[in-house]
């Protein structure tokens, strides 16, 4: 392989790594929001899938991509409310509630796809994806400009969200309460904090965020909904969250590590078609399994993670 070629390909690979990291990072943020308040959310995958479908549907019927984004997020938020009520008020097993939502998501999106989206009677707007935004001046910076400042909107939102969430979680009253509720809900309760309210708000916000990750697939990357198009990225997001020790910045870095092999694979396919691509595309999933098996470092979840709170 040619060294100069590799150097020349670098910015492109990095830019697409960032792109592929986007839904993973957003999924991880959704997980961080929920689990910091001690609600485990394995339904992120399902929420993303539903958001991707609803996003496309809304775009199809309104002709507006951004309305699609909002519609997808709200649909996911609705599922999150369901998950919250089941886990927080009814103290359903959180894994079971999450699994049920995931199964429901596969069913409903499959149905909607065949019924409305596979052969639509309406036409999608052109273009039917969110378009890249070149940030003036910054986009001209060599390499950095190509990687960071010529992206599509959800990538930017993800980047901003990383820092906003990091700040909110560790520097604000809301974050302090969220973490308190996730560590020792009874202690928070004795200081007059409404444990249920904090948990509900966080889970709902987590749902909205997961929805943003979902519409990335249909409205930013592809331009329409495909069956099962989220492809396990929600679960990989959870692995990134653990890898990132339940912090937004850590999750972001983890998501980049998960996104990089995919980006390399795409580039390799293009320039070196004789290398079997299957090996590279396996990497994120293998990494996920390794992380979830607890091999990489000791990750300590919030102390009350997954435990319902009994109010007297």
């Amino acid at each position, binding site marked *: 392989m040619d060294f100069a070629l590799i150097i020349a390909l670098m910015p492109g690979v990095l830019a697409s790594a960032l792109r592929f990291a986007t839904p993973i990072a957003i999924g991880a943020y959704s997980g961080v929001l929920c689990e910091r308040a001690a609600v485990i959310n394995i339904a992120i995958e399902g929420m993303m899938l539903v958001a991707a479908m609803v996003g496309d549907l809304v775009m199809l019927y309104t002709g507006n991509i951004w309305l699609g984004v909002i519609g997808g997020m709200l649909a996911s938020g609705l599922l999150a409310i369901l998950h919250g009520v089941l886990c927080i008020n009814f103290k359903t097993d959180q894994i079971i509630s999450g699994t049920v939502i995931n199964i429901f998501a596969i069913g409903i999106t499959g149905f909607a796809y065949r019924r409305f989206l596979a052969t639509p009677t309406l036409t999608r707007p052109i273009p039917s994806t969110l378009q890249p935004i070149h940030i003036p001046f910054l986009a001209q910076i060599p390499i950095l400009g190509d990687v960071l400042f010529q992206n599509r909107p959800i990538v930017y939102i993800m980047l901003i969200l990383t820092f906003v969430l990091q700040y909110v979680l560790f520097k604000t009253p809301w974050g302090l309460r969220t973490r308190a509720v996730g*560590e020792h809900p009874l202690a928070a*309760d004795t200081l007059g904090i409404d444990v249920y309210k904090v948990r509900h708000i966080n889970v709902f916000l987590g749902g909205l965020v997961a929805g943003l990750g979902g519409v990335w697939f249909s409205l930013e990357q592809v331009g329409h909904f495909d069956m099962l198009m989220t492809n396990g990225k929600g679960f990989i997001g959870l692995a990134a969250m653990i890898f990132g020790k339940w912090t937004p910045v850590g999750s972001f870095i983890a998501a980049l590590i998960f996104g990089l092999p995919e980006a390399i694979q795409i580039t390799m396919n293009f320039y070196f078609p004789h290398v079997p691509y299957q090996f590279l595309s396996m990497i994120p999933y293998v990494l996920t399994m390794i992380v979830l098996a607890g091999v990489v470092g000791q990750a300590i979840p919030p102390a009350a993670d997954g435990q319902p709170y009994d109010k007297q």
Partner: protein
Amino acid sequence: MTKPPALEARGITKAFPGVLANDHVDLRLAQGEIHALLGENGAGKTTLMNILYGLYQQDEGQVFIGGQEVDIHSPNEAIAHGIGMVHQHFMLIPVMTVAENIMLGVEPRTARSRWLGFIGQLDYRRVESRVRELSSQHSLEVDPTALVQTLSVGAQQRVEIMKALYRQARILILDEPTAVLTPQESEELFQIMRSLAERGTSIIFITHKLKEVFAVADRITVMRNGQVVGSTTPEQATEQQLASMMVGREVLLRLSKAPAHPKEAVLSLENLSVNDDRGQKAVREVTLRVRAGEILGIAGVQGNGQTELVEALTGLRPIALGQVRIGEKTLKETSPRQIMEQGVGHIPEDRQKRGLVLRYSVEDNLVLCTYYQRPFAKGLIIQHEAIEENARRLIEEFDIRTPSARTPAGTLSGGNQQKVIVARELSRPIKLLIAAQPTRGLDVGSIEFLHRRLIEQRDAGYAVLLVSAELDEILALSDRIAVMYKGEIIDTLPAEQATREEIGLLMAGVGGHKTSPARQPVEVN
């Protein structure tokens, strides 16, 4: 008319499934008074306090603050009425700093970001300076930047008090604050309480230690079975009287015991060293023996390696160096269950973390060590009848106050949780009992009972290793006393020769063989 009481409860009644925890309770707390609340385990003290603090709602009865009737539905409202509470089991978040624990719920934001509301920036500096101010005002030593999990129990308690002061509490509820403190720490707490009371704070102080009542209280109220049985002052009462009032019968505050007849060594430690969580040596080359038929007491200020020593002996912590023998067997990477099956009973220091599964029922907790053996299991099948029968017997024998055997252990009163553990450990065939702070949180009647049991076990040929921060308990029970200081056993004395003063000095690291230049490990026999 004189000043209205700071707080008055009238006819408070509260029922839980199967128990009347409070039965028309009246309590008057005068302005600036330290009011001791006594009562046996399960008498309803904590329940009453939780009602005043808004954690529980009373079924009947009224609460008055400064003469005004108030409705308290949540801790928020209690705080707004100037009530602060230090709970029997601490309410601190270990992974957060002191400042974060203190400001939680009343977080100040920086001036610049106040408009952002809940996502404004936390003003750590303001909290820290306010904490330092209160700290010097009340001589309450608290470092706001420390991480709670690194603090000693005494320091954590000061953080709890600081939480109340930070919220400008004028009525302070202290639920068994001294249960986990060393004598020095308790004395410091009393200083703090006195100075707070002088400045007008009214304090409700719950304790099982009668001496403390005489040391700080202005008034005393005694509860039994959910009812107030009387109210008096320290001048009018004696320890013996209070004890009888609490329990409803005569209590022997001092037990007599016959001399020990020790036999072969059951537990032997040779140069045992154990590391703490940070990998520092917490136990240093300890050599000692506990023989069948004797009680060896380990005295020492908490945090001198006793916890790590006990954890190593029960298989909860690896042995760094040296040897432990139980009977003929040498422990080496032995699991807690294998140690248990060697005939070792363990009453752990932290009953909620290590002693019980709080969500499990009392009857299940009573067979936690033996559920897989006959008669509680036949093959893979659990024998519920045997478990129920076992629970019925132990609840009766150990006087565990619980609505039923099926009640989750976590809802029992603190002292009754402790009795569940004691009953479980003493009811199975053991030859060595390792008891760490076994009477922490127990009422005088239960302490008498437990002490009597320990002496009986000894006379029946058990070896008992007793670790206690209560000097009185060590002196009352031990046949030999080993004093632990900075991870070493600095001296071992026969109990009949030991005096309070001498042990007290040794606990502070003054004197002892180990301080001699030779630094030879002392063979204890």
